[in-house]
């Protein structure tokens, strides 16, 4: 190779090496912080469905994997107090207007809902997105409900004969959410013993 090529190659190489080192050092410096932030994020979103008052462990790290009715793996986060499981949280998926709606469902040991929050959805802004807690308190009215205090046939939107309001102009979204929660409670009933086993 000619001399000029060598020069260009070494300039490029030197810059690559130099910035490579800079980036490696930064990565080292920020790595722990970033891990910590991601853990905090997860804890914060879990704490919305598993109130901190009911547990003395870290639900993010206390997980078990169970199979749902369709045979798919579901990660269940467990809240324990004094070694006793006081609540569990897991992801449920509903069919929305524009795609799947993923929610986090928190249930206490008696099968009562502690909280539901939307994780991701693609519903129409202004119509279906009222399921988000920052856009309306619709999602909060599930708190405290269970199959014990609400008969199975009431777990529908009003249009289908149940007890949950649909939104004006949008029925499919709430229908999907209610259906997903209903399935989520069935999942709890089916796997109750495994979920509540002292870990």
């Amino acid at each position, binding site marked *: 190779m000619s001399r000029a090529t060598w020069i260009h190659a070494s300039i490029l190489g030197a810059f690559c090496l130099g910035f490579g080192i800079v980036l490696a050092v930064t990565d080292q410096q920020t790595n722990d912080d970033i891990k910590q932030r991601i853990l905090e994020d997860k804890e914060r979103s879990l704490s919305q469905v598993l109130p901190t008052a009911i547990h003395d462990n870290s639900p993010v790290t206390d997980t078990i994997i169970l199979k749902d009715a369709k045979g798919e793996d579901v990660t269940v986060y467990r809240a324990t107090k004094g070694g006793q499981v006081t609540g569990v949280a897991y992801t449920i998926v509903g*069919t929305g*207007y*524009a795609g799947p709606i993923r929610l986090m469902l928190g249930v206490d040991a008696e099968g009562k809902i502690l909280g539901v929050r939307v994780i991701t959805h693609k519903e*129409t802004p*202004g*119509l279906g997105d009222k399921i988000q807690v920052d856009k309306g308190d619709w999602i909060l009215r599930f708190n405290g409900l269970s199959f014990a205090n609400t008969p199975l046939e009431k777990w529908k939107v009003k249009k289908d004969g149940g007890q949950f309001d649909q939104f*004006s*102009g*949008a*029925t*499919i979204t709430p*229908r999907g959410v209610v259906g997903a929660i209903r399935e989520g409670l069935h999942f709890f009933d089916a796997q109750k013993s495994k979920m509540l086993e002292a870990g």
Partner: protein
Amino acid sequence: MRIAVDKSGPFTHAPTSVSRTMTLVLAALLPATLYDIWLFGWPAALMFLVTVLSCVGLEALCLYLSKRPVGPTLADGSAVLTGWLLAMSMPPWAPWWVCFVAAVFAICLAKHAFGGLGQNVFNPAMVGRIAVLVSFPLQMTTFVRPAPLGSAGSPGLIDSIGIIFGHSPMLDSLSAASALGYIKTELSRGIPVSQSILTAPDLTSLALGTHAGSFGETSAFLILLGGLFLIAKRVISWHIPVAVMGTLFLLGTVFSAINPDRFTPGTFQLLSGATILGAFFIATDYVTSPVSKSGQLVYGFGIGFLTWVIRTFAGYPEGMAFAVLLMNALTPIIDHHIRPRAFGRTRKGEPLPLNRGNK
């Protein structure tokens, strides 16, 4: 040298003008419009007036701002027609501000930002409709059940002013889904089309317009009459309407035969939604459709096909407006590839051989 001119030019004989065309189109729309006003009551009449007047007012404003003569250009009637078509594509009880925003998009952005009549790439009325459909999904998908003027369910003039200009919310009991919307909703909760179509408005109801839907599109029969009148008057040719409706009908029939649980039949596709209004009055807009007849067939096929695809697979139940806009965007390409034959020349642009007819 003196050249004797004993014949007038071929371009001078027909009494065609922009305003004559517009008048004929408006005349063709009139029966359906009056019928729909009767069907949906005073609020619909107000909605119609607000939309048309907004369009005319905004047209005047745009002309004034661009320092063009206001009076003569307004008199050509194109703004009235745009407003009229826009009103026909709105829900009958749409609030005034939805109509006004639609008119702003239609006249100011789709028409005058491009340079006014004849310069616009996209059909102004459809741009207006889509802009508000995307912006206000709630207001644009709240349709009312028809309640003819004078009947019990029809609100009086004062109440109507409250509905269109005020904040009085529409009662849930009055609202209903459009036929296409109903089928789509039912399908999404797992009810096959073959079953939900039995409870959807039947074909007679679709033809007569006694079902919920946009203001101007529910009465398929009267719109069809108006369209045929335009063809008879040679304001439009048959190519685009036939291509649009034929494609929709064929796709509907074929796929419904294959899987009646998933696809709606061709007759339903034809009579529901904006099919007939779109095919005769919207897709045929001179400015935004191809010039040549074969180009128009391609264009019409494209609209029919896209409408069917959007209705069947996409998020919105009705796809006519989207399909028209998408094909508007392709019109220059169609015109480029399927050029009309220039007068006195062959299709390839060579001069015609001389004296062919004089043997």
